[in-house]
């Protein structure tokens, strides 16, 4: 293979993550294989008790408590993950110049939590805006989480957010790949972050829409994609950031390579504010496969987006059945059933949780699938227990979002250069 071809191939060399059930990839993988959910009830202002995924991690490992207080929850999650990804990749500032490093962070929304908190704050002072915090603007600018990462790491290259509803994490990975291929940066910190569990409005809106999950047997049972008794979304916080490098540079420094981002696609439904649309999702998967120069049957693991809503799951299953017809060795799973819906972080976090399959050849299970909805029937849907497969070399990751945004990322194991 010539040098230029390797220069345009982009690989994942480091993973930092925080999920409701883990604060590093090893722990995350172990808990996904066990189907271990820690979704529990939180008591949220105005909304009351609701199932949610809350992350527990060492928040002061990489910056002071004072800085966490100054910044946002999204910033706190992002700073932790960015440091963890760099450490995991064995990268320091000597490897790539700080002005050739870019930070691209996918967000479903940002500023909702901070704005709600401030309105509550001034409600304690008769809505006198003299009591509105001076921290509001720097906390709510859309680049906030990415900017907090650059401040913590002294990165002087570009940083910004990618707003892409619940497809944002994948969209940020795609942005990172594109910026590396364009030669804008030499290292990309790309991923997704969600602090949405701090917003009563997000829960209340899902509830008003009839899409907030609950289950009589408890919060760990609430998120049940494809199950006949599913009744909506479990909102979770979380984050995952990858280090992306060019293959030639990664090989030259002897980096551990998780996989290569070989294909991606994004498109728009152009039809509804909330309802997803299977035919467009099918087009998105097909385009990503074409760009990766892969046939559907070449995909070993398909990680679904399904959130546990009635219509959303049906649309995605219909799209998968259309594209992956007669693909006997494509195995399908769902990560949200275990960790809930980490919104802007979902795509990257769920992809991260599946990357170790390249080493262990297991497909982590979908949990809470007691009675399959006939409209969600899929061949090779891995449920209840992890499934050992012959060889995992490709993962296709779906991530879709409101207002009709679709994203697909395909990652391939690197073992033959």
């Amino acid at each position, binding site marked *: 293979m010539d040098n230029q071809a390797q220069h345009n191939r982009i690989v994942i060399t480091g993973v930092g993550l925080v999920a409701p059930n883990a604060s590093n990839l090893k722990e995350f993988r172990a808990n996904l294989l066990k189907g271990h959910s820690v979704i529990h009830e939180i008591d949220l202002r105005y909304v009351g008790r609701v199932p949610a995924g809350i992350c527990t991690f060492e928040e002061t490992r990489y910056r*002071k408590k*004072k800085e966490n207080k100054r910044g946002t929850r999204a910033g706190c999650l992002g700073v932790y993950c960015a440091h963890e990804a760099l450490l995991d990749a064995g990268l320091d500032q000597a490897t790539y110049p700080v002005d050739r490093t870019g930070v691209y962070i996918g967000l479903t929304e940002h500023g909702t939590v901070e704005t709600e908190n401030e309105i509550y704050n001034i409600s304690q002072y008769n809505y006198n805006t003299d*009591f509105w915090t001076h921290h509001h603007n720097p906390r709510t600018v859309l680049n906030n989480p990415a900017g907090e990462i650059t401040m913590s790491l002294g990165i002087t290259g570009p940083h910004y957010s990618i707003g892409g509803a619940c497809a944002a994490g994948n969209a940020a990975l795609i942005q990172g790949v594109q910026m590396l291929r364009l030669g804008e940066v030499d290292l990309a910190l790309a991923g997704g972050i969600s602090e949405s569990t701090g917003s009563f409005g997000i829960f209340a809106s899902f509830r008003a829409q009839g899409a907030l999950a609950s289950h009589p047997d408890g919060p760990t049972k609430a998120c049940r994609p494809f199950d006949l008794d599913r009744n909506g979304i479990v909102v979770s916080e979380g984050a995952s950031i990858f280090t992306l490098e060019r293959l030639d540079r990664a090989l030259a420094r002897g980096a551990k390579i998780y996989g290569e981002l070989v294909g991606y696609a994004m498109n728009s439904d152009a039809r509804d504010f909330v309802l997803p649309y299977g035919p467009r999702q099918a087009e998105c998967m097909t385009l990503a496969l074409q760009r990766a120069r892969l046939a559907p049957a070449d995909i070993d693991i398909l990680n679904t987006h399904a959130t546990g809503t009635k219509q959303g799951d049906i649309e995605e299953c219909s799209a998968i059945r259309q594209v992956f017809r007669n693909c006997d060795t494509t195995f399908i799973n769902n990560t949200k059933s275990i960790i809930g819906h980490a919104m802007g972080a979902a795509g990257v976090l769920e992809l991260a949780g599946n990357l170790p399959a390249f080493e262990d050849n297991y497909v982590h299970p979908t949990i809470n699938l007691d009675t399959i909805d006939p409209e969600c029937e899929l061949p090779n849907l891995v449920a209840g227990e992890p499934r050992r497969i012959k060889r995992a070399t490709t993962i296709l990751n779906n991530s879709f979002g409101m207002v009709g945004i679709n994203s697909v990322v395909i990652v391939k194991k690197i073992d033959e250069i």
Partner: protein
Amino acid sequence: MTLQEIKDVLLEIIQDIDEEADLTTLQPDQALRDQLDLDSMDFLDIVMELRKRYKIQIPEADYPRLATLESCITYLEPLLQGV
């Protein structure tokens, strides 16, 4: 409020802003910013907290008078009379 009470309140507010700050060696006549990891936004936090607790408005023109612990106490003493 007595001068000691004002000092205690200020130290409490600063400690709340930076829980890891060591206030035991703070020199009252030296600039707070030279001794602690405080920037302009932190000073605004102090101003906001005083506003919330005691309903006092500190005009921007007076911010330089909050430079040291001692000058803060001197400045606040008449404003906190009767509190």
